[in-house]
């Protein structure tokens, strides 16, 4: 009975809507699809979406590795507080994130009044989108790397030290390789989340085609013009990109699990 209910629920909420999306897309000919999903303006929006997401995901990977390292290895005052603050971007509604970031980096904002005279423009520019996406994705890498770092045995590092490796060599040659799967999973999760993000970006973007106009915005614009098929074409491109990410993540998780069970 529970299985039946689960299947019916998933069918109604996930499968039928997805079928509707693909049916709509398949009602277009290839030429129409390209005309809707691959014009200059749409390509520019993909470029803004994907390049901003990529830079934000790279930034989050570096920051996440550092935060995970510091939170696992070092002791400092209020460590527990900082540890739990990492999760805030998950709990904070994206609209609030967008609103507050647009206020912080505006010309009279807390950060903007110092940064703008230095020529750093972090409001209504692509940098603003990257910044807010970095905020949204901050917890992913930290939370994937942290447990792996905690589970590493001390003796590996001791062995490396005994064999004459410097601390840096131990880190890059011994520790980092065992963190790669977790880092890539975290990166992929951040990237996938950033591609689809809309709520926070709409507050900090000036919506200039080719500069700050993102692909999800185009979907909404087409919908407001009642051009359902055109909106669907753009959506399909985004969907395929995020499904590809999901497949990568699943494959990695399976490999890590296999490696773990082999080690035990």
């Amino acid at each position, binding site marked *: 009975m529970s299985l039946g209910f689960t299947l019916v629920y*998933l069918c109604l*909420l996930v499968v039928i809507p997805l079928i509707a*999306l693909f049916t709509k897309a398949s009602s277009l000919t290839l030429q129409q699809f390209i005309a809707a999903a691959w014009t200059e303006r749409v390509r520019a929006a993909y470029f803004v979406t994907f390049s901003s997401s990529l830079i934000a995901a790279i930034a989050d990977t570096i920051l996440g590795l550092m935060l995970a390292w510091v939170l696992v290895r070092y002791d400092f005052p209020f460590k527990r507080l900082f540890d739990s603050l990492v999760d805030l971007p998950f709990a904070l509604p994206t609209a*609030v994130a967008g609103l507050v970031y647009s206020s912080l980096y505006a010309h009279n904002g807390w*950060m903007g009044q110092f940064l703008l005279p230095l020529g750093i423009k972090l409001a209504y520019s692509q940098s603003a989108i990257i910044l807010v996406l970095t905020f949204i994705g901050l917890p992913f890498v930290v939370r994937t790397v942290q447990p792996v770092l905690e589970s590493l045995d*001390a*003796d590996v590092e001791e062995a490396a030290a005994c064999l004459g490796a410097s601390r840096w060599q131990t880190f890059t040659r011994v520790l980092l390789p065992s963190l790669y799967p977790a880092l890539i999973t975290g990166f992929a999760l951040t990237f996938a989340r950033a591609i689809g993000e809309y709520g926070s970006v709409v507050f900090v973007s000036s919506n200039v085609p080719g500069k700050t106009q993102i692909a999800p915005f185009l979907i909404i614009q087409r919908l407001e013009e009642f051009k359902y098929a055109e909106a669907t074409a753009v959506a399909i491109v985004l969907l395929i990109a995020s499904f590809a990410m999901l497949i990568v993540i699943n494959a990695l998780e399976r490999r890590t699990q296999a490696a773990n069970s082999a080690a035990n």
Partner: protein
Amino acid sequence: MHSIPKHMPTSTVVSASRGRSAQEDPWWVRWTLISLSVLVLSVLVILPIANVFYHAFSNGVAAYWNNLTGDRETLHAIQLTLFVVPIAVCANVIFGVAAAWAITRFRFPGRTILTTMIDLPFAISPVVAGLMFVLLFGAKGYFGPWLQQHNIQILNAWPAIALVTTFVTLPFVARELIPVMEAIGSEEEIAAISLGANGWQMFWRVTIPNIKWGLLYGVILCNARAMGEFGAVYVVCGRVIGKTETMPIRVNTLFEGGTSETYSSSFAVASLLTMLSLVTLFIKIALEHKTQADLKEAAQTHQTE
């Protein structure tokens, strides 16, 4: 810990390795990294929270209260959120328990496909999620004409908002429960049945008490996300002021309002959502200890068996 010789107590190994500092970094590395981390979290996380409350209360508490309660449209947005979110959370709790039960208690072909399907809403952009429901229920959508004939309004009304919110938050409860139920195993449930309990008694007296902290954890995360959902709701709600706006949508409308009054009202609504997320974090930390203790206990009973 296969590498530690059996005759050696674990505690001495641990303390020896700490003392010898094979895992310790030079002090300047430590301090640079700690300062950088604190700086990053302060600028990215603490500063924004402070900023929300600063702007919300910048004209005093009275103005803040007036911003929230003096505006009929804002009050309606709060009511709509408080009406729609429980629907989505309840639906996903029932689904989450059923799905976790099916996946952990039965072996059947396609179990991995089922778990992937549960994760799908995480991989779909909220805007695309909203679009899918527009394609189904919109005026030019697949069921649109039929719905119009029967005078049923789904799009641009609360049913669509409830539907997309349920979709976006679908994985939360199930994902929390699957590992918990997997770890606890079914021995106690089988024992209950063999002692003469019926299925319903077993479920309420054995299963639910076992999974209650994990369940609550899932509910908390699901609730936070449901209250804050923007993109998907934005697409389907039609944004009729005072009718179909939820709290996050109201924040956006007020932000676009352009005057300094609407600007501070927008921060007032945002401050409510921020408080919600802070409360969520606190409950989450408290529950994390409980669920981890549960999992450890389950692991220990398994080992002693």
